[in-house]
């Protein structure tokens, strides 16, 4: 390795070194017109659902994504809502299908359809989904 280094150093010295670049002529910097690298949008925005006037007397459905201890936090959220709104109806996470991972467009949407059916069947007025991390 030591010998290789000496050879390389000698070759560099023989090549003249960096002074050539010092003498390089300054050129006007070119200007470019450039296009965007971003992908093209394929989605259509949907309107957000109207919000509720109160949760009291409403059916709130809890949906679990099978992760990050939502099986602990969702029941705690349900109990806290019940304390604040005595007439709220809580549908627990174990009575609802799991939150599906996004299913590729054009492919089977089995899990999404199952959740959609349950939202209608249980008469959900609002949905709480957890947990993301």
């Amino acid at each position, binding site marked *: 390795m030591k010998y290789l280094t000496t050879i390389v150093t000698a070759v560099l010295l023989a090549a003249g070194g960096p002074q050539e670049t010092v003498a390089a002529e300054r050129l006007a*910097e*070119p*200007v*470019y*017109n*450039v*296009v*965007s*690298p*971003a*992908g*093209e*949008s*394929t*989605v*259509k*925005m*949907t309107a*957000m*659902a*109207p*919000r*509720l*006037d*109160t*949760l009291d007397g409403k059916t*709130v459905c809890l949906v679990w994504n*099978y*992760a*990050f*201890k*939502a099986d*602990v*936090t969702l029941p*705690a*959220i349900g*109990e*806290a*809502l019940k304390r*604040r709104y005595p007439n709220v109806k809580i549908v627990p996470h174990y009575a609802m299908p799991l939150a599906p*991972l*996004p299913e*590729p*467009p054009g*492919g089977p949407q089995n899990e*999404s359809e199952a*959740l*959609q059916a349950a*939202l*209608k069947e249980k008469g*959900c*007025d*609002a*949905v*709480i*989904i*957890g*947990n*993301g*991390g």
Partner: protein
Amino acid sequence: MAERLGIPAVAVTNPGFDDQARTMAREAGIPSLQVAVYPDPFDLETDAQLREKSARIVVPQIIDALTKPIPASKGSAENRDSRKIVFTGNIDQINRHFTDRGWSDGMSVTPPTKEKVEEFLKYTGYPPDQEIAVLPISNLKATPWNIAVNGVMAGCRPEHMPILIAAVQAMGDPAFRYRNHGGSTHSFVSFFWVNGPLARQLRIDHGQGLIAHPVNSVIGRAMSLIERNIAGLRIKETQMGSFGKTLSWVLAEDEEAVNKLGWEPYHVEKGFPKNANTVSAGTSTVWGRNLVPATSDPRILMEIMAYGMTTTEAFASGFTGQSRRYVLVEPGVARILAEGGYTKSSLKQDLMRTGRKITYEAVFSQVHGSFGRVNATFETELQRALRDRNNEKGKLPPWYPRFPGWEEIETTPAIRMVEFIVCGDPARNKVQILAGGPGTAMQQIRLPANWDELMEKAGYPPLKSFYFE
């Protein structure tokens, strides 16, 4: 989904993931996802803390999210003319602008002028606006045009286009599971390998130092820019790798060495003709774990490989057997295996038979080191695992001592998915083990009809001269 049915919804997340959730929802057509934030990492909290903070901190946010009116948002996503000049400036100004817009990785890019992009499109054989794939996370459409823009920026040559297009098709294949791992906190890196004569014609390196070869690395950088600009990954927003994500790397298989061994190159193993050109895509959380076999005994060599693979996993450590292993085998190591009678297929079988983890250990790491599917206490999970039909006695791997009673030790399979790629320094004795998610995909590369003519002009020997008989 609930919002689409007219039902107000709110998602609960950790800090940082609220922006990711909003962005992902917006890109799925939900303009203003409502999020309630739990302040600390869920998995590091006690159940008592989870209950108390949920009630005190999260519930008020939930009530607001479900009852306070949301200001009207834009009715539709932005649609723009891809040919529009978005900026004019010198190199420094362009680099600053692209970095500010989140379009660049921060390293200098080649300015993507229309002229450059049009030059790249000559090498595709596709109309410029044809849909090549719709890529998660952002559900944006990849076209030859925007793939070329990213290729130009990365420093690719126009003749790399067929590989970039096939690689994007592989990324868009649901079998690659990009939707699950692209923005994952586990920091999965997408990587690609090329088989067939095209790899040799384009001088994609398969030997010593391969991923650092300029051709390999510019294609890898282009794929990372495509992930950024077409898949829509941004750190602190949609790319949630806890420690970040490196640039993609690109490999080619040393098919000459493979043929000499009497083994099949990767694409032939998967049913493609020898002179077909393919790109395959995989993921890994690390640039491999180095194994230096120091044996000429093929059986011991297989065992040390099984050891290396068993102890190299992706995800959290608790997902035993769920990561696909990509095993890069140097030709010298492959020769010992082949001369010992191994084919790729029989080697795979032996590795899967040998690579096992003690079930107690697998459950320990599952219960204390995974993010989700833990339903019960350690003891209950252990009993469940011991009842699993894959759990067996008497199969303790050879790297454990045979003390009295060892036959009673229960083990579980640690290796279920294996891909071999023969590459690397033919003068060394290394095996590199990459562990990633289960998703993998493969795509045949389509070349334009006038490929030979284009390549002759570009100074390359004809593709046929790289064919194997």
